[in-house]
């Protein structure tokens, strides 16, 4: 198997699931190296494990291919995937087993919500993975950019593939960050999977349960299990997030992975007790965001700024210095890798995104274009088939729980959302595309990208615990 023209019988089910299992195992080992995550029960670590595993394998493969010029073959990639496992084993052998926190028993309503969430999550995940294994990639961006890039990279066994670097090759968006294609190639090479598109769709689909698990875990630590379950249920029941081919987990757009990486990085970096390990892990996630989509770099910068604001507002700048510097350092390294990789790729076949720069152009564009864009955004959010009741229940939750948002834990989430919104608004104001068309084709995906901080903030608003009204420090739920 593994080359064009070979006989392949049926979808590559075993190969795809084995690759996903290896990525998750690698990530689970990484969670063992992060003190805040190490304390969690395995189920709550699984979401982080998926994100860290993808970020590690995709990011390290990207780096060794571009910087060290090592071929993207199993002999290189498998050791990369197993490195965290070895590190976790060494750590376990050399240190005492951590004491787990005493479990707080579930209250009846919490138990019901969590059971519903778990059953619903497993069922929808099964549907997404099964559909991914059954039907080849058919979404616009997947065919145009991400899967095509993966095939070019796999064919050349390097991220510096001649098709990307050749000035005459007709490759759309050749300078788009390629973490997801690299991850796909790494996973395929490790298990010697065929070129069948169906291999890759489950890798994208698994970002959906990872999103929910990370959301629940982070929200639970900030707002308790009940609020976290309600917020996660609200996210889980947004049809677009799961079933959209054009931005959701059913497709191969990179928006959901980006949402998970930058949102996860932000949540981990601003978790109570975050130190060097959490800083490095959140840097890995933010670096993955930088390498996943063009929006990743500004969003990662927003996340770092939000974490800094949180540290300053909480008077804990000195205590957060290590984690902030570690996260910023890893993110900067990823940005340098991206710049270096792009420098070898001639700019071509990439439509101009921005008409003009400068404050005057921004002000003029905002006045002329944002009202029209806003109408298109509202129209998109009102689409019941795409979003169900999501944009009814999220504002409702914020209104009902507004009093609970005036606390420190809300600061980084609110700052991150404000920063992301400002970035999107600037893009809408300055773009050369017609405003309505631009908003219509991107706003749903921007909502996905803001998903983790948005729903985590919703969880804070839903927190029923009495201390939520005057709490200044987070507590585990």
């Amino acid at each position, binding site marked *: 198997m593994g080359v*064009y*023209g070979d006989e*392949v019988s*049926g*979808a590559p089910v075993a190969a795809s699931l084995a690759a996903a299992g290896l990525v998750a195992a690698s990530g689970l080992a990484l969670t063992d190296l992060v003190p805040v995550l190490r304390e969690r029960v395995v189920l709550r670590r699984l979401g982080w494990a998926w994100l860290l595993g993808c970020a590690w394998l995709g990011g390290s493969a990207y780096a060794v291919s571009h910087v060290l010029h090592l071929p993207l073959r199993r002999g290189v990639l498998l050791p990369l995937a197993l490195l965290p496992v070895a590190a976790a084993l060494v750590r376990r052998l050399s240190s005492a087993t951590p004491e787990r926190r005493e479990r707080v028993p579930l209250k009846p*309503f919490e138990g019901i*919500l969590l059971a*519903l969430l778990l059953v*619903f999550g497993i*069922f*929808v995940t099964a*549907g*997404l993975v*099964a*559909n991914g*294994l*059954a*039907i*080849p*990639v058919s979404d*616009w961006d*997947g*065919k*145009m950019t991400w899967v*095509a890039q993966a*095939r*070019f990279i796999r*064919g050349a066994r390097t991220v510096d*593939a*001649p*098709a990307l670097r050749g*000035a*005459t*090759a*007709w490759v*759309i968006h050749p300078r788009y960050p390629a973490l997801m294609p690299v991850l796909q190639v790494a996973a395929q090479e490790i298990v010697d999977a*065929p070129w*069948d*598109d*169906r291999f890759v769709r489950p890798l994208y689909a698994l970002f959906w349960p990872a999103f929910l698990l990370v959301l629940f875990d982070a929200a639970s630590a900030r707002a308790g299990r009940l*609020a976290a*379950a*309600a917020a996660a*249920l*609200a996210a*889980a*029941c947004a*049809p677009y997030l*799961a*079933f959209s081919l054009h931005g959701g987990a059913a497709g191969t757009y990179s928006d959901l992975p980006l949402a998970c990486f930058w949102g996860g990085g932000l949540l981990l970096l601003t978790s109570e007790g975050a130190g060097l390990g959490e800083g490095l892990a959140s840097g890995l996630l933010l670096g993955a965001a930088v390498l996943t989509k063009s929006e990743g770099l500004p969003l990662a910068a927003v996340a770092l700024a939000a974490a800094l604001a949180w540290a300053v507002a909480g008077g804990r700048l000195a205590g957060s210095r290590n984690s902030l510097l570690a996260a910023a350092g890893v993110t900067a390294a990823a940005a340098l890798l991206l710049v270096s990789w792009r420098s070898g790729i001639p700019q*071509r076949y990439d439509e101009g995104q921005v008409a003009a720069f400068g404050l005057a152009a921004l002000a003029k564009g905002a006045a002329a274009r944002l009202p029209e864009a806003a109408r298109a955004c509202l129209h998109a959010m009102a689409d019941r088939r795409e979003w169900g*009741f*999501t944009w*009814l*229940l*999220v504002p*409702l*939750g914020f209104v009902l729980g507004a009093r609970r948002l005036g606390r420190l834990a809300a600061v980084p989430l609110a700052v991150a959302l404000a920063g992301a919104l400002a970035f999107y608004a600037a893009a809408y104001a300055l773009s050369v595309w017609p405003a309505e068309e631009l908003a219509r084709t991107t706003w749903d995906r921007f909502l996905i990208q803001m998903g983790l901080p948005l729903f985590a903030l919703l969880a804070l608003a839903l927190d*029923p*615990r009495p201390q939520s009204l005057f709490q200044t420090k987070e507590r585990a739920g």
Partner: protein
Amino acid sequence: MSSRFVAFLPASAVAVLALVAAPAQVRTAWDWLQESPHGIGRDEETARRELRGAPYAVALAQAMARIPAGSAYGLADEGGPGPDKNWVRCDLAPRVPVQLRPESCGSWFFERPPKDVPEVSVVVARDGSIRLAETRTLLTSLWSGLTGPEEEIPGWIDAPAEDRTVAGRVEVSGWCQEKGKGPCAAIRVWLDGVEVDAARIERFPRPDVQAAVPDIGDCSRAGWRTAFEAGALAPGRHCVAAALVAEGGRHRRVGPWAFTVTK
């Protein structure tokens, strides 16, 4: 009790409202689960055929067989509204596409000319179908070899007229003659961007031109024509152009324009 109720109200309201939307999600996931065994059991070729149709799968298989992995091919998109060129580029990767852009009336040029012209090109039609073509036939361009500015040399393409519909045998004909200088030295004709062999172009008398244009002189060789038997041109839109070439290489370009062939 009431304060506890108020505290739990936001989370409860959001959870209940979320659950109202859940059945639709469950139905979708259930449908996907039920459909998946059939899809998972197919090989890649069958899956592609069921997704994009047999003609696409067959043409793609032909392209894969003719273009070695990693080598270049021309990709000519006739400008359909769909993402079809993206499918071709993705499905043929790691073969490297080089874009051919339409010039006029069926001729193409490389937007970024490669060092070596790929032997094979894939043409993506407006309806999304694909076909293979020899790149050099696509590159045959109008007006090749004609240099210098155009001149007002009397003459025209009489048939087929612009946007006319033609059935059966297609005759491409016209006339060319400078006043007092005899018939044009050469006539060159392009059909769908491909130049018609000069040996196929016949000259014939045009007494109607001689009567209509004063002082034009003897028009016994002013007319020109070439013909395509019924069925030689596929039904649909075609494109014709002609260069009227006088002494010394002076020339006038007529067309290109489109006409339609029906059965």
